[in-house]
Structures are given as structure tokens and as C-alpha cells.
């Protein structure tokens, strides 16, 4: 299994998609920090006015900064509610951008074994197919850890570059939230692995990633079941636990996200192993 993991890491390091998706996340972070600075600080608002953006004060007194006055709503006092963790969440986690980009990388990574035919080389050597699933999930876990740490580290760096735009979050909260995000995104990774093992097609895998990680599917099904008052299940989905994860640990109930992520991770990994064992290469 560790031979397979070594092979996977060798390939991950040489995959362009890994760097492209990470760069996209970082670019989104830069854009978000810049926009918040532009709208939420006096220097930023001066700059915005200088570059031709207009500031409109509405009846309620809140300022709107934007080319047309229709976009970019932010009260300066709102910044006080923000910290580095909340900024990190707003940029990539809550809207599903992180899960989407991470999902695309791993879906392409999983499916290319099939599309290239290299799977034949692997499976002729590793007859115990669950080792393949385990190594793929371990590679995804390493990538997930790297992505989360780099992205969060980059947010901290941006905060420093923007003259400490928002206060730093407590370290314990950061660890709690990053740990929860890691477990939930690994649940997503196992789901994408199941899809790729089943369809063996990069296009189908990427489509599944788009529908699942962005929450489109959950929102749609939630809406339909909600019509009949049957939508309690939604709090047990990966998307919900990613979107509405608590910022800090305040009680036993806050560990629900960990449990949901871990259960789905184990379930999807087991199903992937069953599918792979039953299907010929």
C-alpha cells in the first residue's frame, strides 16, 4: 500500500491541476482581501474613489462601494465582527469553492488511472484491491492537509500584507475548524472516489464534484423534501456540515461534523472497495 502511495505522491507532484486549483484558491483569497480592504477601510475607500469607483450612502447610513453602486455592500463596523478564521471561511469554505476545487483535482487524479490504462499496471501487481482505495484516500488526505494549511497560511499572510485588516482568530478555534474541514472534505473525497471507481470517467467525476461539493444537489433535494416537511436529514449531509460548521468548540454537539465526515468517509471507502473488487479492469 505504501508503494502505491509513493507512486501517487510522485504523480500528484507532477500534476498541473494540483497547482492550477491551488493558484485559483489563492487568487480568490487575494481578490477577497482586496475587496474587503477596498470597502471596509478608509484607505481602501479613498483608493476606490481614486480609481473611479463610487460610494453611495443610502438612507440607513450604510455605504455601498462599487462601479454602479449596486454591488459591494459593507459597513465599516462589520469588519469588527470578522477575524482571520471567518475570512478564511468566507473565501473558500462556506460557499463550497474549496470543496469544488479540491474535488476537481482529486476526481481528475482518480480517473486518470482508468483513462490512461495505467490501472492495468497497478492491478496486475496489487491483487488486494482495497489497498488501492486506501492509498488513494491517503494521497487525498495529504493533498487536503497541504491545501488547507497553504490556503489558511496564505490568508494569514494576506492579512499581514493588508495591515492586519482583521484580528487573528484564537489558535484553538483554528485547529478545531481546520480539523473539522479536513474530516468533511475527506468524506467528499471518498464520495468522489466512489463515483470515479463506478463511472471510470473524468467528465462524469467532475460533474459529480460540481453538483455535490457546491451543494446544488443537497439544496434541490432539501427544497423538495421540505415541501413535505421531511428535510431533517439535511443536517446529516457533508455539504450542510461544511457550510454550517461551528467556528469554535463549545460543547459535545459541535463534534457532529466530525462524526458525519468520518462515517461518510468510512462508508464511501468501503463501497469503493466493493465496486472495485467486483468490476473487471
Amino acid at each position, binding site marked *: 500500500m*505504501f508503494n502505491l502511495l509513493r507512486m501517487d505522491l510522485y504523480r500528484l507532484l507532477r500534476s498541473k491541476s494540483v497547482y492550477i486549483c491551488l493558484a485559483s484558491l489563492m487568487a480568490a483569497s487575494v481578490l477577497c482581501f482586496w475587496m474587503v480592504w477596498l470597502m471596509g477601510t478608509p484607505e481602501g475607500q479613498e483608493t476606490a474613489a481614486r480609481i473611479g469607483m463610487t460610494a453611495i450612502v443610502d438612507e440607513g447610513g450604510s455605504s455601498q462601494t462599487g462601479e454602479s453602486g449596486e454591488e459591494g455592500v459593507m459597513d465599516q463596523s462589520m469588519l469588527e465582527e470578522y477575524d482571520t478564521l471567518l475570512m478564511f471561511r468566507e473565501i473558500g469554505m462556506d460557499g463550497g469553492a474549496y470543496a469544488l476545487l479540491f474535488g476537481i483535482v482529486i476526481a481528475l487524479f482518480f480517473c486518470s488511472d482508468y483513462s490512461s*490504462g495505467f490501472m492495468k499496471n497497478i*492491478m496486475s501487481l496489487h491483487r488486494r484491491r482495497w489497498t488501492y482505495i486506501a492509498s488513494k484516500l491517503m494521497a487525498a488526505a495529504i493533498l487536503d492537509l497541504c491545501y488547507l494549511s497553504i490556503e489558511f497560511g496564505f490568508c494569514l499572510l494576506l492579512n499581514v500584507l493588508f495591515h492586519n485588516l482583521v484580528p487573528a482568530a484564537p489558535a484553538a478555534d483554528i485547529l478545531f475548524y481546520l480539523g473539522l474541514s479536513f474530516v468533511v472534505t475527506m468524506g467528499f473525497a471518498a464520495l468522489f472516489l466512489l463515483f470515479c471507481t463506478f463511472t471510470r470517467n473524468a467528465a462524469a467525476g467532475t460533474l459529480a464534484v460540481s453538483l455535490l461539493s457546491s451543494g446544488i444537489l443537497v439544496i434541490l433535494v432539501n427544497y423538495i423534501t421540505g415541501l413535505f416537511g421531511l428535510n431533517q436529514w439535511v443536517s446529516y449531509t457533508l455539504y450542510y456540515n461544511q457550510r454550517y460548521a461551528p467556528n469554535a468548540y463549545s460543547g459535545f454537539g459541535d463534534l457532529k461534523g466530525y462524526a458525519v465526515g468520518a462515517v461518510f468517509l468510512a462508508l464511501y471507502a468501503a463501497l469503493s472497495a466493493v465496486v472495485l473488487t467486483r468490476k473487471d479492469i
Partner: protein
Amino acid sequence: MEKDIKKQAVLAVETISLSKVYKGKAAVSHMDMKVQEGAIYGFIGRNGAGKSTTLKMLCGLAKPTEGEIRLFGKSAGDPVTARRIGCLIESAGLYPHMTARQNAVMKAKCMGLADPNAVERALEATGMNNTGNKKVKLFSMGMRQRLGIALALLGNPDLLVLDEPINGLDPEGVREIRQLIQRLNEGGKTFIISSHILGELSKLSTHYGIIKEGNLVEQLTREELEQKCADYFQIEVGDVKRALPLITENMPEVQAEVCDNTNIRLYGLKEGSGVNHLLIENGVQVYSSGFHHMDLEDYFLARMDGSRK
């Protein structure tokens, strides 16, 4: 001598009633294949006869519906035994955005090879060591096949399963691969090769297996094939229906085979004048006659037609 006898007795591959059923249709049916260690086993059959399915099962890529596979006397599921096989099934499985060396390194890592020179040796053996930074997606079909063989050679396996290994190779490439296979075979490696290029296969194979509609209809050695392909006497007559019983009744030691409305082939005949006399004396017109020789292709086609048993 004793060593040779012992070696001959070991079977590199043995399948016992091996079957594979896809959606109710048997792709391979109760196959009992036996490949001796050190042999080059030519596996012949029409498209869709079940060759690739059989080879996939040997390499662990397809699960048999029924039956057993034994490799070097052990179960095929044994992880140590699995490492003694190198496979090239259908097209070579390669990452297109990687170079030849990177693909080989990937396979070496997958195998956990400790020898740092193993990749270089395998690439050198197939002439793929000078491709530099060229990506596999820019390779010709022949180059991909060579790289596929290089990957199969990694880890110095004892058994190489090659499905259509010379597909897409130029004549020079075909000769190089033939020489490579012969050289490796001399070093003791066993080969199972499936190919439609029967002329090339007959230059290499020491043993043959013929598969038809999922059934292994015949397994024979090169010597046995040569015997079966030995000279036959073909006679063109006016009336086959009269000629055939005359021959079979008067010459019971001869095996007769009707080719078409006018031609009969006779196997096991030393000289032809006796047959000619027999037919003419009994009023059967003889238009032409003479001795001929079959090659592997003729034999295979005859076997597929079902005219030879």
C-alpha cells in the same frame, strides 16, 4: 539433464476449468491451459475468441467466474507470485502527460523496486532510453508498445504476458522485439504471446494454444505442429463424393479432408501415384495432384474452419 527434466515438469501457468461469463455468455469456457516454464506460448484465436479475457484473468485484471489459476504452482492471488508476472494487455497503459522515464519510475514505485538501475535497464532493453523529455502523448504507436514492454520487464519477471506486443511496430521494431523475446527466453523467462501476426509468432513460439469461441481447442508443441503441418497430398478430382469413400476404404492409414467441391487433402501419404491409380481405375477423373506444405496460418485457418481435428 536431471535439472532439465525437473524444469520441464514445472508449469508456469496452469488453469483448471477456467471460465468467464459476461451477461450470460461464456467468453472463456472451462479452459485447461498448461504453459511450461521456459516456453514461448503462442496464443492464437480470432477476434473475440477470448484471448484477451484469458490473459486478463491470468494477470489479475478480470475475476474468473469459475475455475482456478495456478502460477508457478501457486495460487494466482498470492502477492509474491503476482510480482513474477509482467503484463502488456491490449494497449500499453501509460500516462500521456509524462515522459517514458517518468512512466517507468511510476511503475517501479508501484512495485517498490529498490534497484535504482532497474528503470534504466528496462528502457535500454527496449530502446526507449533516449526519448528525453518527450511526453508519451507525442509518441507513435510503436514507441508506446515498446514502452509498454519496458514496463512489463520492470522487476525482472519470470513470466511475461504480452497481448499483441508487435502491433504498430515497424519491421525493424518487430525484429528487435523478436530478438529481445528470444534473448530473454534463453535466460529462462516464460512468455505467453497473443498475436494475429502468425508468421511472426511461428518464428518465436515453442508451444501453441488455439482458442475458438472461448474454448481451448488445441495445445501443441512446435514439434507437434510441424508434424501436423507436414506435407499433405492434394488431389483435384471430378467427383469428390465417389473419390472419398474409395480412398478411405482402400487406404485406412490415410487421413482425408475435403477442401471444396473438387479438392481432397490426404495426410500421412508417402507417395501419390497409388491414389491416382486407384481413382482412375475406378473411373474418377483426376485433374491435378501434388504434395504441399502447411504453415501455422494454414493450420490455424483449417482449425478454425473445423476441417482438422
